[in-house]
């Protein structure tokens, strides 16, 4: 009996992974702009889902649960990922010494980024990126996005709005006045 239940559970999880793997991977790829990292994140998210599979499979949308785990993992690890990338890069050119002028660097990155949605997304904060990807790629409503990000609908609206403004600026479509990119912005909630 126990073995049969375990077999059913394993088969159920395997077919879920077959079905949900690609959509989750595409979301992760938009969130981190690196396929290797996206694969690692989806793997980690699916392993977490597997540990609670008996409970997860009874919920209406297991994919939504897995996506929520994935988004939270991505946001949680974003600072660590950025620092690690920076550290390794610094070690690669230890003799470089002088860092570029930040303003010139920003201008240069804007020129590079025009027309490249991946690079433009990478310039947003982790939560802005998540809000935009969930709303405009996964097609979630503001309420669903708020659930995924564990915040209010107002925060989703403001985070998305800032992210879109920044994105349009970077993609050369928009209003440069709204180009501020500040992690603290994310705590602001619009009622």
């Amino acid at each position, binding site marked *: 009996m126990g073995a049969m239940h375990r077999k059913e559970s394993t088969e159920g999880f*395997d077919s879920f*992974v*077959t079905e949900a*793997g*690609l959509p989750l*991977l*595409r*979301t992760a*790829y*938009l969130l981190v702009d*690196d*396929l*290797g*990292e*996206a*694969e*690692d*994140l*989806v*793997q*980690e998210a*699916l*392993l977490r889902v*597997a540990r609670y599979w008996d409970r997860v499979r009874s919920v209406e949308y297991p994919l939504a649960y897995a996506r929520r785990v994935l988004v939270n993992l991505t946001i949680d690890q974003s*600072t*660590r*990922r*950025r*620092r*690690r*990338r*920076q*550290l*390794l*890069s*610094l*070690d*690669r*050119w*230890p003799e*470089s010494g002088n*860092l570029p002028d930040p303003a010139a660097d920003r201008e240069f990155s804007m020129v590079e980024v025009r027309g490249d*949605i*991946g690079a433009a997304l990478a310039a947003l904060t982790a939560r802005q990126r998540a809000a*935009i*990807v969930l709303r*405009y*790629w996964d097609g979630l409503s503001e309420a669903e996005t708020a659930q995924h990000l564990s915040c209010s609908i107002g925060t989703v609206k403001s985070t998305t709005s800032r992210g*879109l403004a920044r*994105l*349009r600026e970077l*993609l050369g*479509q*928009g209003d440069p006045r709204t180009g501020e990119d500040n992690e603290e912005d994310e705590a602001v909630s619009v009622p």
Partner: protein
Amino acid sequence: MSRQHNDIAQALADRANQVPEAAAERVRQRVRQQLDREARRSRRMPIVGIAAAVVVGIGVGAGFLLPAVTGGSVAGPAGTAQRDTPAGTGPTIQLDSLQLSLPAGYRLSGNECLPATTAPVVPIRSSTTSALAPTGGCLTAELVPDNAIPPSTPTVSVSGHPGWLTTGTNGNTTNLLVEFPTAGGKHVLALIAEDIPADVLVTIARNALPPSPATTSPCAGPCG
């Protein structure tokens, strides 16, 4: 949705559709392998526990009996062995096919242990695992692309593989990068540590990496 928002949605879709289905299949296989490994480990656990208890019992018995039989004295608790092989008695970090055995007293951690820097970025290939040393040091291990290695000549040989030991800008950070070949091309093992001696990093890497074919092939006669 406005036209601009449609444009963004379309750009996201174009970008997302670049992900090949083979990548999802790769993830599916990795998840299945990991789950199978965990299942095997949990089935094996009771047997390993009993075997470990028997081994410890025999070891303790021999420790007490041997000196009495030979008239000698008992040495310290494996002090020399631990100095010679500081890695291998603590927890392990699994990075793809590499298994990194850590010294006794270390514990795995999800804590941040990388110093902040300000520099451009390089892509990372694989997930990371951190561990805390009993002395308060911290170690992060990961596999990174081979473009992360410095342009200088290697500073250390690890099991015959070229390695680069560098010190971070804050002085107490030591990094070891070791380039090694795999079936899928060259990989680089990166050990990024704070307040952990360089020789410990080298030992951890040496125990994890297979010997370089270049160092093993000439060994036709008795080796070791």
